[in-house]
C-alpha cells in the first residue's frame, strides 16, 4: 500500500495543507516544530482513527475548529486507487472510503495498515504501564475488530461497576450483573494480549538478530493483572474482590491493570540494559510489529519513521531496511538530509507547508 496524496485541515496547528507523496521513500526535511511529525501523525490515523502520539483527541483539533480532517489517496494492493477521509471531532471519529461512510469499524480495521517508529518510543520501555497498554491495544485493535469491541465493552462495563462501588451500599445483584458483562470481555482481552505478546516476542528475537543485539537475551513478558482466560474465572475474581474493591471504591484487578516487560536476560531491560540496548529493543519491537501486521493483514504497511533514521548505527540501519523489504512505503522525518539522498523524494517543511525540493 502506498499513499500518493494527502490533505489535512484543522489538524493540530495546520489550518490547511496539501502535498503529493507519490514515491516509495519520502523524506520530510525541516527544523523542529515546523509540522513534520503532524504529517506522519495524520497518516498514522489511517489504521484505527487513533493517533500514535496521544490518546487525547482534543489535541488533534486545531484551536477553535470543530473537527480535524485528513484525506488521502492510496494505491492499495487489494482495493486499487482508493480515497480515505478521516474526521476527528471532540464527539466522534468517522471515516469514509471512496466517499462511503464507514458505519462499523469491523468493516474498516485491517484495511489500511501503518506502523510507526518514533524517537520517543524508548518511553515504551521506561514509562508507565498505561503507555504500554495503549500501545499494545492499538497494535492489536488496528486489525482486530473483535478485540476493539471486547475492549470497548470492557471499559464501559468497568465504568458501570466502579460507579456502583462508589455508592454508599452497592447492591450485590447489580454488581453481579455488571461483572457478568465484564467477565467474558476480560477473558477475550487477556487471551488476545497473551497471544499477540507471544508472537511479538518471537519476532523481537528475530529482529534483535537482524540489528546486532544479543538475541538470546531479548524477550517480552506479559504481566497480566490475572492470567485467567475464561469468563467463569473472571466472574470468580470479581466476586472475590468485591469486599476489597468496595473499600477502595474501585475495581483493582482486571486487564485495565495489565502490563508487559521488555526482558534482557533474566531481568527487566529497564534495570539492566544500557541506553543503547534499550533503544535497540524498542526498535526491535517496532520491527516485530511490522512483521506481525504484515502477517495478519496480508498487506505491506506504510512505515512512518519519525526522527529515528539519523540516530541508527550501521547494524540497526541494516536490520531496519532488511526487515522493511521493498514493498513498504516509508515516510521519514529529520532535521538533516538523509545519507543516500537520491533514494528519497525530499519535501522541505516550513511552518506547516510542504515544498518539493
Amino acid at each position, binding site marked *: 500500500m502506498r499513499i500518493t496524496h494527502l490533505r489535512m485541515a484543522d489538524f493540530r496547528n495546520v489550518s490547511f495543507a496539501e502535498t503529493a507523496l507519490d514515491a516509495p521513500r519520502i523524506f520530510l526535511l525541516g527544523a523542529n516544530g515546523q509540522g513534520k511529525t503532524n504529517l506522519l501523525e495524520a497518516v498514522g490515523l489511517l489504521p484505527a482513527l487513533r493517533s500514535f502520539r496521544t490518546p487525547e483527541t482534543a489535541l488533534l483539533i486545531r484551536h477553535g475548529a470543530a473537527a480535524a480532517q485528513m484525506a488521502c489517496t492510496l494505491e492499495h494492493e487489494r482495493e486499487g486507487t482508493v480515497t480515505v477521509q478521516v474526521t476527528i471531532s471532540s464527539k466522534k471519529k468517522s471515516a469514509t472510503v471512496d466517499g462511503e461512510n464507514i458505519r462499523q469499524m469491523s468493516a474498516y480495521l485491517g484495511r489500511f495498515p501503518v506502523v510507526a517508529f518514533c524517537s520517543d518510543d524508548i518511553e515504551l520501555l521506561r514509562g508507565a504501564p498505561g503507555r504500554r497498554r495503549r500501545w499494545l491495544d492499538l497494535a492489536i485493535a488496528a486489525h482486530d475488530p473483535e478485540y476493539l469491541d471486547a475492549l470497548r465493552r470492557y471499559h464501559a462495563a468497568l*465504568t458501570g461497576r466502579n460507579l456502583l462501588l462508589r455508592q454508599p451500599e452497592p447492591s450485590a445483584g447489580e454488581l453481579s450483573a455488571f461483572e457478568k458483562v465484564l467477565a467474558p470481555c476480560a477473558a477475550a482481552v487477556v487471551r488476545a494480549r497473551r497471544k499477540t505478546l507471544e508472537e511479538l516476542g518471537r519476532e523481537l528475537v528475530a529482529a534483535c538478530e537482524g540489528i546486532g543485539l544479543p538475541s538470546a537475551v531479548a524477550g517480552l513478558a506479559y504481566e497480566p493483572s490475572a492470567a485467567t482466560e475464561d469468563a467463569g474465572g473472571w466472574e470468580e475474581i470479581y466476586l472475590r474482590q468485591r469486599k476489597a474493591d468496595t473499600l477502595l471504591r474501585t475495581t483493582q484487578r482486571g486487564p485495565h491493570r495489565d502490563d508487559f516487560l521488555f526482558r534482557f536476560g533474566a531481568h527487566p531491560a529497564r534495570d539492566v540494559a544500557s541506553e543503547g540496548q534499550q533503544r535497540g529493543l524498542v526498535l526491535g519491537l517496532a520491527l516485530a510489529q511490522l512483521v506481525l501486521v504484515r502477517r495478519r493483514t496480508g498487506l505491506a504497511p506504510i512505515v512512518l519513521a519519525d526522527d529515528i533514521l539519523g540516530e541508527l548505527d550501521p547494524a540497526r540501519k541494516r536490520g531496519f531496511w532488511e526487515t522493511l523489504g521493498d514493498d513498504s512505503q516509508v515516510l521519514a522525518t529529520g532535521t538533516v538530509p538523509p545519507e543516500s539522498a537520491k533514494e528519497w523524494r525530499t519535501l522541505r517543511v516550513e511552518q506547516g507547508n510542504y515544498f518539493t525540493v
Partner: protein
Amino acid sequence: MSPAFENVRQLLKQLPGLGHRSAERLALHLLVERPDRLPPLLTALGQAAEKIHRCPHCGHLCEEETCLICADPRRDARRICIVEQVPDLLALERSGAYHGHYHVLHGKLSPIQGIGPEQLNFAPLAARFAAEEISEIILALSNDIEGEATCHYIQDTFLRERPNITVSRIGFGLPSGSGLTFADPATLKSAIDARRNYL
C-alpha cells in the same frame, strides 16, 4: 426574560429529546406565537392524565384496569417479552411477529444515571412470576452494556430458581448500542424469529 417564561423553559428542557433550544422554541410557540394552541393542549393533557396510567401488570399505558394487551384473551399469556420502554413494545407490535404478553421496565440498570432495580418496574414482574404460569421469557433489551447487565440481573433475580421457563434474548442483528425503537418491522421480525437461548 420573564421569570414565568424561564420557569416553563426549564421544565420543558427536562423532558426527553428536548434541548435548550427546542425547549425555548416550544415555550415561545405556545405562549407568544400561537397562544390559541395552548388551551386545547392543556385540556387534552389534563384529560389524558386522568385516564391514562401504567398497567399494574405489565407497565404498558392503559385506560382501564389493565391494558388492552393484558386483557386480550387471544394472546398467549404464558409468554412474556420484557422491554425497556413503551416505544419498544409498540415497535414489536408493528412488526406483527409476536403474540404474547409484555413487561415494560421503564428503563434499564444504569449506574451513571443513578437507575438501580428500585427505579425499574420490577415489583410487578416479581408478582407475575409468583402468580402466573409462565413458560417463556423473551429478553428484548437494547444491545449495549446496560441492556446486557439488566438481562443478567433478571436472569439472576427471577429465573435461576425456575429452570422450566425457557429464556431467550433478541437484539442480535440489531445495530449495536441501539434500541428496538428505531429498527424497522422486518428487522424486528427476524430478530424475534432468530432469538437465542439465553445462558
